[in-house]
């Protein structure tokens, strides 16, 4: 069953089992204004650990803005974001990644003059050797660090089935493979919570199947995922839970079937948000 919120009241988790499920992330009363326009309006939801939650809603619902606030890319005006109870407000992007939240971008943001494997190496949580003194004064140690990082990056690329493209330039691989590379980069951070912004948009049927398999694999490995997704078929496939947003507010939170079958939400989603 889904829970429909009345105006700005906080959302209560739908399933009794969810209430006992440990929440990895809790977003409460998150509010963000751009000039006079309120993009997030007391947005409240939580992400149970180890589950895939899809953030759905029509364009302009505030999904990407919520991503930006959670990952420190935007400062928010009110509310709180807690990771396992620890407040994240005021932390920089790097600190948030180190605490265990990493994100991908809708427009990919790959390092487009670098190889596939170097794109992953740059994002690894292991920061040893990322300083000029080691590179210049301990060149053999620096080379050993790079070899170790390359091996780690290759393991990650194998997880997303991109190892055979490791040495290719990112502009030489297909769009679907670029999307998988985005997932590999997020995995490289070793974050517990992965925020994926429209990972399946623009993909061919085959690439889409690959992406769904990868997301399933991540879920099976115990990662907690928050995924912005527009394709309701995919949402039903991958999501354990749904957070439905509209005009900056969470209208429903719960089981995918229950939420997606609600006529009023279907009308909002497909009917232009009126």
């Amino acid at each position, binding site marked *: 069953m889904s829970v429909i919120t009345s105006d700005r009241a906080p959302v209560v988790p739908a399933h009794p089992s969810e209430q006992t499920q440990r929440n990895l992330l809790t977003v409460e009363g998150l509010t963000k204004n751009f000039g006079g326009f309120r993009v997030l309006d007391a947005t409240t939801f939580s992400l149970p650990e180890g589950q895939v939650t899809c953030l759905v809603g029509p364009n302009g619902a505030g999904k990407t803005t919520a991503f930006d606030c959670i*990952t420190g*890319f935007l400062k928010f005006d009110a509310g709180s974001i807690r990771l396992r109870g620890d407040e994240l407000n005021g932390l920089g*992007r*790097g600190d948030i*990644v*180190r605490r265990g939240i*990493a*994100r991908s*971008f809708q427009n990919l*943001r*790959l*390092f*487009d*003059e*670098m190889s596939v494997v*170097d794109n992953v*190496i*740059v*994002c690894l*949580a292991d*920061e040893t*050797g*990322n*300083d*000029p003194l*080691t*590179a*210049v004064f301990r*060149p053999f140690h*620096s*080379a050993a*660090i*790079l070899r170790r*990082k390359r091996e780690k990056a290759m393991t990650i690329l194998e997880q997303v089935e991109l190892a055979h493209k490791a040495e290719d330039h990112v502009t030489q691989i297909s769009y679907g493979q670029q999307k998988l590379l985005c997932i590999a*980069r997020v995995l*490289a*951070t070793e974050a517990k919570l992965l925020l994926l912004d429209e990972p399946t948009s623009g993909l061919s049927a085959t690439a889409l199947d690959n992406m769904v398999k990868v997301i399933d694999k991540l879920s099976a490995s115990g990662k907690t995922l928050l995924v912005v997704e527009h394709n309701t078929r995919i949402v039903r496939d991958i999501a354990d839970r749904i957070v439905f947003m509209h005009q900056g507010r969470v209208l429903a939170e719960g089981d995918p079937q229950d939420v997606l079958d609600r006529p009023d939400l279907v009308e909002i989603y497909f009917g232009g948000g009126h």
Partner: protein
Amino acid sequence: MNFFLSYLILAEIFAIMALSTNFLVGIIGIFSVSQAALMGVGAYAYAGLAMAGLPFPIALLVAVTLCALLNVVTSLPALRLAGDYFVITSFGLQFIATAVFVNWVQVTGGSTGIAGIPAPAVLGVSFEEPQYFVILSSLALGLAALAYTLLMRSSYGRVLHAVRLNELAAGAAGRNVLKMKLGISAVSGVYAGLAGALYAVFMSYIDPSSFDIQLSMLILTMLVIGGARTLAGSVIGPFLLLMIPQVLALVHIPPELLGPTRALAFGALLVVFMLWRPQGIAGRRI
């Protein structure tokens, strides 16, 4: 012979300076137009300390450290600004440096500069003579090039490139973008300090006009024409551009027209490269 050696030495010194600029402009994407100011600080620091009797290695080390620290300190507020604003800020730094070089007479000698800067001597051999100094400048460029290669091949070099290519994505991966920029500013400062000190030793005379905005522009032109983001580009640019005055000296041009002709040649080269080969001779697009 001395004519060729002088050209070679100056080209090597400016190749180190072009590498310093390459770190900022080419590798991490900080468009600095105050590199001559930094080179000047290195030159004046070395000159002052050497004149005070400090041995060459100590004076060099202090000059290099000072330039590294100064580049970090002056970059710190400016790096928080977006690209175009940083360029304007670095213009300001260049003008401030020139004003200090001219007006801090007790230290810099003011407009008259500092003359008689001593050259180092090892086992009774003075590096004052070009045939000996070229060993020093070649060794310095060799070490600078080796360090550049080691930096670029390391995981640190990869992160530097990533920051230039997409700062937001690098930040999203947990990289501390500001720390990376400050780190490479320090490295760039080390190179500029080394080039400045070598320049002071070789010329044995420096004055504020040696490190003005025109020199900053010349260094940038060397990098653009040689090619940014590669070792070869940073070496080719200075060797090519410093050859132009030598070539012009061989052509029968009235002495009063030599300066303007040289400036015209530099300007024309810059325009031609921007139009038809923006990545320079051996570089990649900035």
